[in-house]
């Protein structure tokens, strides 16, 4: 991964702040947007990017983040609908080349795949890993008792 990109992250919770800290440390220009200023305390002291205290569903806030120049946008808030709206606005109006939304509800994920919006669903990812762990455990047990 190139390390001189302009990356906008919406939501500064556990996932958003983790991404922001790592990407900033790796040398990218990072802008973090969150409605709640208190969440910026999740950012590490060496985070060198910008913080914007605002609601990302307002286009004025996205303009303030200079979204037009962004290479990547991650939407990581706890509200699926905010994430889905922000990535669509980023893709269709600001023409951001890479956008990704976290969506907890698998049903919503299916619909937005139709619109060409990339989403990550922690629920299905976790479920898949758990199923795999179950299969592995079963296989090991089989191996013990041939």
């Amino acid at each position, binding site marked *: 991964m190139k390390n001189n990109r302009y990356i906008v992250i919406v939501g500064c919770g556990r996932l958003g702040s983790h991404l922001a800290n790592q990407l900033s440390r790796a040398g990218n220009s990072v802008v973090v947007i969150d409605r709640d200023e208190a969440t910026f305390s999740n950012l590490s002291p060496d985070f060198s990017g910008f913080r914007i205290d605002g609601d990302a569903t*307002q286009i004025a806030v996205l303009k303030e983040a200079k979204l037009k120049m962004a290479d990547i946008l991650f939407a990581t808030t706890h509200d699926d609908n905010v994430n*889905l*709206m922000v990535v669509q606005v980023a893709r269709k*109006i600001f023409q951001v080349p890479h956008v990704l939304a976290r969506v907890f509800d698998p049903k*919503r994920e299916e*619909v937005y795949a*139709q619109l060409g919006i990339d989403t990550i669903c922690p629920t299905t990812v976790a479920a898949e890993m758990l199923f795999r762990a179950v299969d592995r455990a079963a296989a090991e047990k089989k191996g013990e008792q041939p």
Partner: protein
Amino acid sequence: MKVLIVGGGKTLYFLCRNFTSKGYEVVIINRNKEECVQLARQLSAVVVCGDGSDADILKDGGAMAADAVLAITPNDQDNLVICQLASLRFGVPRTVALANDPDNAEVFEKLGVSAFSTTHIVGSLIEQCASLEQIINLLPVGEGRVNVTEIVIDADSPVSGKQLKDIDLPENALIAVVIHNGRPIVPRGTNELQAGDRVVLITLPENHGPVLKALTGEMK
């Protein structure tokens, strides 16, 4: 016609009352349990309690058979997702979202969802009504791209006593109805406008001012 409305508050209540009185079948989706109980008591509509942006709840509300979905919650992101789910997943032919942030009306249209902003509508109503006292009524239609205005022709008006064909109206404007002595007429070129007549005008926002000027003599 079956209409599904997602939201709450007084707007929803009065809209729903209006629709049911017209004989529409209305389903309400609301997140708040207490408000749902209230609505179910007050209105003859089916009330579903739940998150309208959840596909299962929309299905419970009968989205498959709905002719229209109206999303008027106070959160723009919810309104957008509700309309997209309704049209993409359930094939609802007409969906309309409320844009609480007026900027989002344009954003939603670009994302393929019909939207309206009450701030825009009320704002332009006030501006245009306040600009001219002869205006009785003004109604933006076609997402605000067309105005329907009702005005009174007074004795000082430059068109009072003139036949319609002699009135020089700007392009894209129409005198749709003349109400003369309480009797509405769809006018032809030979009809004459008289003081006291009420005129229903169709204009576009861009020529609204000049058209009003032509009929009243005043400039807004």
